[in-house]
């Protein structure tokens, strides 16, 4: 099993915690209180190795940071050796994209670019898609704008809704795949460098994740 550290960044009240809870617990709380400091959660997913058609289990250790300005100084500690960063913005709030871009810049300057998978995520898609209803808000951030920016910066890009769960799984799935790809490259490189010296066999010593619904010891 591969373990990856993932950190969520973004302006306050864009729905970072909601996304994580949707992903980890598949639940949504309409009245979630704002996060204090940084919360820790973990979840495993399965992805398919494109070469060997085998299933690979990936475990995410997720640090859900607080978006409030006050906790900004905590963020570096969590993104410093993270493998992936989820930069979240609110599709109904233009400002939040600007803040997200700020985070992306900070990540690019502080962390080596090639070690880190950054994924730009626009949340609260449900607010815009409820067409015809009085409660729907205009979409302040066009998908094309954000996507253009993401392509330009070489980021993954998704639009999700933590409330309906739309697209949340895909975000982590795509991150997992990308991370796995990286890992494979890395392994291949190191193996190449080690040469034919070691016919090492990797034995998985850890027992399978208890988060797995099929596992007996929950």
């Amino acid at each position, binding site marked *: 099993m591969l373990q990856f550290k993932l950190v969520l960044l973004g302006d306050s009240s864009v729905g970072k915690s909601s996304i994580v809870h949707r992903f980890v617990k598949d639940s949504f709380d309409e009245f979630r209180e704002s996060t*204090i400091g*940084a*919360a820790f959660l973990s979840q495993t997913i399965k992805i398919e190795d494109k070469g060997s058609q085998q299933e690979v289990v990936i475990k995410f250790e997720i640090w859900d940071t607080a978006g409030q300005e006050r906790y900004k100084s905590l963020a570096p500690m969590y993104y410093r050796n993270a493998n992936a960063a989820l930069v979240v913005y609110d599709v109904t709030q233009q400002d939040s994209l600007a803040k997200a871009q700020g985070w992306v810049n900070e990540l690019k300057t502080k962390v080596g670019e090639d070690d880190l998978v950054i994924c730009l995520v626009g949340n609260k898609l449900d607010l815009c898609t409820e067409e015809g209803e009085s409660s729907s808000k205009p979409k302040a951030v066009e998908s094309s704008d954000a996507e253009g920016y993401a392509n330009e910066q070489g980021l993954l890009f998704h639009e999700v809704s933590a409330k309906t769960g739309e697209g949340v799984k895909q975000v982590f799935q795509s991150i997992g795949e990308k991370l796995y790809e990286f890992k494979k490259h890395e392994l291949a490189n190191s193996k190449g460098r080690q040469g034919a010296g070691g016919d090492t066999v990797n034995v998985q010593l850890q027992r399978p994740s208890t988060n797995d619904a099929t596992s007996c010891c929950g």
Partner: protein
Amino acid sequence: MDKEGGGNSSGGRQQSGKVTNISCPVCGESIEGLTKLNNHLDIDHGFDNGSPEVQKRNSKNPKTSKVQQIVKNHWQRPDSYGRAVCQECGSSSKKSNAFINCRKCGLIYCNLHCKNIIKLNTDAQYDPLHGKWYACCYRCFSERPGYNDYGSFVDKTSSFIGLRETKNEDKRLRLLQLENRLVRLVNGIASIHAKCKSSILMSFTMRNEASELERTVTPWRNDRGVLDCSVCFKPFGLTLWKHHCRLCGNIVCNRDETGCSSEISLQHLVNAAKDLPYQQKVSDLAEIDHSIRLCYKCIRSLYGERKFKKDLQKPKPQLLSLCESLESTSKLITDTISHMEKFMIRMDDSKIAEQIPKEEDMTESKKMRTKLLRSVAMYNSLARQVSRITPANPTEAKIKRSVQVASSTFINEKILSLKRVPGMIDDSPRTSSPIREPDKVKSTDLLFNNLTISEVKKYREELMVLKEQKFLVESMIEEAKKQRKFDEVATLSTNLNELSEQIATTQGNLGEQGFT
């Protein structure tokens, strides 16, 4: 059989222990033994410390102990199963001591909800005058006539103002009287002086006449029976002489250390109160060599206000003027910041609407920036000037300290909005703002050790956040241990170590400025 009718003292003299019949000296009743006689005297004739009332009550105790009972027939009874239910909380019990009837309305309550007491008469009606205290429920307590939640409320403002006005009126009248007396004294002395200016015995005659005049202007208080000074209350004696104040006539001492009274030359008196209607010109009075004794109270009421007004006209001390300019500068800064913030919001709005900012808006914002930076720099330099002043007295030292504290608090308060200023400009169209940046840092570098105030603030905030997070992670570890998720415990522990390291670093940065 000793004596008859010898008063109760006859019993006292009885030494023998044998039991004899003694007749009571008061009523003649024959009583067995001294102790019984004593009791008889004490109880029936009330010789015990002269409080026959008490004795009477004691003796009648068995009869009067049946105090008239309060009516109970309206009481609510427990139901047929002997169960009682509290009206307030609905709890029920069969125990008789767990419940109590409200003595007024008779309903059943639990002990918790019948804690108020109220004065009731025997008919269980509220009677604040003759009633006795009985337990009652909150409803009866609060519904009794005259009850409110806040107690009685009387507006005394008008009567207070009235009192104050009469008092002030009295004070003004008294002052007028003193002033009149002073004027008459001065006038009289001036005329005496004019009369005997040419005489050889000038000083002698003048003193005599002046002393007579003083007594006519002010009725002197009779000094017989006055034992101590009316100002300092020290008793008079051989060394402490009695003196009369020439204006109010009161008797005071002349101790230097208390300044109860002092002899003041006419010239000074007149000079200090030039506005009074003297007959002669003030300058003419200067040549008269004569002093008048005034008590402390008269000096204060006559000259206190005048001195205050005069002091106001004096140039202010440096500290005060600096303080005032600090005040006005701080006002300017606050105004500019709020103005600027509004302006920025407007600029942002226009930016969202994708309008190109107007040229005059740009110059306006630049102007405001410069103004703000200048005033902050000014504030800073003023604050430094204050810290350089050497205080002349303890009061000034106190003022100085307060001003310093206030100014650093002000800077601390404004630092956030000040820091945002360059950022706000940057967000709006790119102009020459980066060049200004060094200025900014300079203007706020009131130093704390080697850190600027803003840095100290930042580090402190960071430290607080870090400690909070450490606590959170610690509780997360506990939680994970409980759930037997040991792989998570490992991750969290690593993070905890990182946090501790970071806390140590930040604390090191803060040095003395950290919290303990």
